[in-house]
């Protein structure tokens, strides 16, 4: 039995087998009861053993046969298959498959510049030096001994916008580079206090230990205010794709500044003008200017249901989605079901948190006529999520793909098809 398997030993073509859950060698070595062992061919031509877990077989009547016994590690129902949408440079969170605001860690979006490094936590050290009283290094164990802090926050890549001319694009495709976690770690202010940051320091360099040795310059004030060195995500150690064993986390700021696999912070009296803050993560605006150090993520929302590729039926529909702002709390989400002619206030799921995804819902009775539905977020600064044409009017037609947060419009066709209405 030869199954198509990629180099991670994950079955690619799920249709060829009777059950549809990808399996891995870890499962074979792990605790799951094994019903059968099959030989599979990997993409690089290597034949390996893989197990079909007993739970993978579907019984007609679950009341007539005992199920698998307790195991070392839980897994999703074999009927649920949310996956990220990967490209060469990133993978996107399946926003349309989530029911609330927390992103399961394995579905958190990824963006990195030279792959995911493997870092031994025993060998990990974070250096802090430059304009400080004492240049110091901290092991992971050291970081965990300091007073800890947890908060729920979104993290969003500032390049989080895609569209498709035919409108056949999911919420994941449009805005899947935002995810939300509970982050736990030590406040950077605690470490600043420990090393004695000198008054002359106004910026610091954050450097990762990936193969891009990625760097960003951050104003020291953000470090004192709410920056964290996070080592945990949703209650467990941070995933490798999210910066294991420790990362910088800057609430509300463009994801690139929250440098992962953090190895060094250097306090300075000026920014370093690294590649990621000059030739990347900057946006052309009007009058030939290029905007730099655009840290804050402006307020945004997206309806995640109903959305492409949902086939809608007439009758009562609860419109659902998420809204968020890097500048504070979401104060209101407005929904229109008549192409923007009128707007209604959506219900927000409590608690509404600072710089966090906020879930909204709005009940709507669809009569079967073609229409457009859309949402717009307002935050506590009084900012209202703009349309794409408002953004282009403010920044010029040639602005790039960074910091685009336009209202997303879904076109509901008479036959129940839901398509994204392209913005430009």
């Amino acid at each position: 039995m030869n199954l198509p398997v990629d180099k991670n030993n994950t079955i690619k073509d799920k249709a060829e087998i009777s059950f549809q859950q990808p399996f891995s060698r870890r499962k074979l070595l792990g605790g799951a009861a094994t019903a059968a062992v099959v030989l599979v061919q990997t993409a690089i031509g290597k034949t390996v053993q893989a197990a079909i877990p007993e739970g993978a077989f579907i019984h007609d009547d679950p009341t007539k046969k005992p199920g698998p016994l307790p195991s070392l590690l839980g897994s999703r129902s074999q009927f649920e298959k949310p996956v990220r949408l990967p490209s060469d440079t990133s993978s996107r969170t399946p926003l349309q498959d989530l029911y609330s605001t927390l992103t399961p860690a394995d579905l958190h979006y990824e963006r990195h510049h030279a792959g995911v490094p493997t870092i031994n936590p025993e060998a990990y050290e974070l250096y802090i030096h430059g304009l400080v009283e004492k240049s110091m290094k901290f092991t992971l164990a050291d970081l965990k001994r300091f007073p800890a802090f947890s908060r729920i926050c979104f993290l969003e890549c500032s390049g989080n916008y895609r569209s498709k001319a035919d409108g056949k694009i999911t919420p994941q495709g449009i805005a899947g580079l935002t995810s939300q976690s509970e982050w736990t770690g030590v406040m950077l202010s605690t470490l600043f206090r420990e090393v004695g940051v000198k008054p002359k320091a106004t910026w610091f360099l954050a450097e990762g230990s990936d193969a891009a040795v990625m760097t960003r310059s951050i104003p020291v004030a953000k470090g004192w205010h709410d920056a964290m060195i996070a080592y945990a995500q949703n209650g467990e150690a941070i995933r490798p794709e999210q910066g294991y064993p420790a990362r910088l986390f800057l609430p509300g700021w463009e994801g690139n500044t929250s440098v992962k696999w953090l190895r060094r912070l250097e306090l300075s009296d000026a920014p370093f003008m690294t590649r990621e803050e000059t030739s990347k993560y900057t946006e052309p605006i009007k009058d030939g200017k290029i905007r730099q150090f655009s840290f804050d993520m402006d307020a945004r929302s997206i309806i995640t249901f109903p959305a492409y590729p949902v086939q809608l039926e007439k009758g009562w529909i609860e419109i659902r989605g998420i809204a968020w702002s890097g500048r504070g709390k979401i104060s209101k989400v407005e929904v229109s079901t008549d192409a923007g002619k009128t707007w209604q206030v959506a219900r927000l799921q409590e608690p509404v948190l600072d710089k966090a995804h906020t879930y909204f819902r709005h009940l709507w009775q669809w009569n079967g006529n073609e229409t457009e539905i859309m949402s717009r977020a307002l935050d506590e600064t009084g900012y209202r999520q703009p349309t794409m044409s408002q953004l282009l009017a403010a920044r010029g037609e040639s602005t790039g793909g960074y910091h685009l947060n336009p209202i997303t419009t879904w076109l509901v066709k008479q036959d129940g098809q839901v398509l994204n209405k392209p913005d430009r």
Partner: protein
Amino acid sequence: MRQTIFQYAITAISKWLLVLAVIFAACTRTNIHNQATGLTSAVEAKYSSHSSTIADTTHWPPTFGFGKLATTQELATLDIDIRPDGQGLPAGSGTVTAGKAIYASKCAACHGKTGVEGPNNRLVETAAERTENYKTKEKTIGNYWPYATTLFDYIRRAMPFNAPGSLTNDEVYALTAFLLHANNIIAPDAKINAQTLPQIIMPARQYFVTDDRKGGPEVR
């Protein structure tokens, strides 16, 4: 009853004193960290109003004593960043000719024979493109990179993609020279080293402005 009111008053006054102390501490901290310098003072001013979100630390020890002092030797190995004023640039130098040969063998496969063809990031602006408005063109070193020092820093830390950190300082200087010349920024016989590199004024430098978005009703 009188005693209770008295106690209440004392408690209330203590609370206010504590609040004032916290406000004073926050203001002091803000002032200390708001000594704006140089071109980016706008950014510093923008975020200087932030106060710390962590809990009251008045009962904390002056130091927790966790972590170790970093040695000069350890920092010398790690501290590879180059600043726009040239701080951090190592000894060594490179020429356009030397850079051309290194580019052909180690860079052209991803960036194209002349830095234009790709498949990966475009590096060079063609002579024809230099006559048009920069906005209408693809981003290149010549039309978009504001500092020449960034080239050295980035090439040395992250390139070539399949073997980052493998180039010698002389090779990085040479590649920097080649790319600057290919973008018509330096002469073909220019020599790039720690003294000459920070003096180069990049064409795009003049276009860079600091973010002016600030929340509120206005779309920027």
